[in-house]
């Protein structure tokens, strides 16, 4: 099935990339947008979603500096089956 792992900088960790984006906004006419944080999205196909937690913990994210969230796309399994 398809799954997504959303990875973001942990709360309290300075995110210069988010800051750079935020600084650029007023010049483009976007007002009233604050606290921009830039993370990463990993999309993948997985046979056994139970593995995603340890995969995220060990490789996709560094838990010291990043939080992750696993989103499983239930409706889109490859074999066309519905939710188990």
């Amino acid at each position, binding site marked *: 099935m398809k799954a997504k792992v959303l990875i973001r900088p942990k709360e309290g960790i300075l995110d210069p990339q988010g800051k750079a984006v935020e600084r650029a906004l007023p010049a483009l006419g976007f007002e009233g947008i604050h606290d921009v944080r830039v993370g990463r999205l990993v999309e993948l196909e997985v046979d056994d979603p139970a593995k995603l937690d340890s995969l995220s913990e060990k490789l996709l994210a560094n838990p*010291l500096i990043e939080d992750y969230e696993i989103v499983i796309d239930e409706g889109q399994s490859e074999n066309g089956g519905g939710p188990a």
Partner: protein
Amino acid sequence: MIGVIQFPGSCDERDALAAVERVDVGRLVWHEETDLSGLDGVVIPGGFSYGDYLRAGAIARFSPAMEAVARFSAGGGPVLGICNGFQVLCEAGLLPGALLPNEGLRFICRQVGLVAEDFKGPFGEEIGPGERLSVPVKHMSGRYFAADDELDRLEAARRVAFRYAPGENPNGSVRDIAGVVNETGNVLGLMPHPEHAVDPVTGSDDGLSLLRGMLRQPAAA
């Protein structure tokens, strides 16, 4: 003999080898090698191991050579991780903390002043506490980070090895930290490049004392 690990994407392994050959005999260790017997120390050099895809150092930690390095360090063998090598050691959990993208988002390449702390392990054997070293940095993700309580513990345990000299922190590292050691002091990671400071011709040979210190500890079994 000192081994210098070479990952696909390493780029400082030859400079590191040339540097260690000023104080000892050296050889390159390909990332698929797992036999480190006969080595008295290991250097994990700078570069972009495995392209640094995902996060700096994240993929290299799973290489066969890194499993061997973990065993080598657990046996007390001295390990020096420089720049990308520091990132790899943090990702592998052999050193505390993590290296984040530079505060200014730019690649930084310049000579910096470092101040040695009174830290545990062999690497400081030939460097006095408070001694100032001039060594280059060149990195994109060198901002050292660890949580405040962890930093307090590291400082109390004499595990902060080097700080950037006052006013010279190039990347936003917490508490100006440029290098830390593991609990037993035999693994040192630092962002600056001592292997590029081994000849007065290039402005400084301050890196040599660090490499000599590395050999002050008996090799792992």
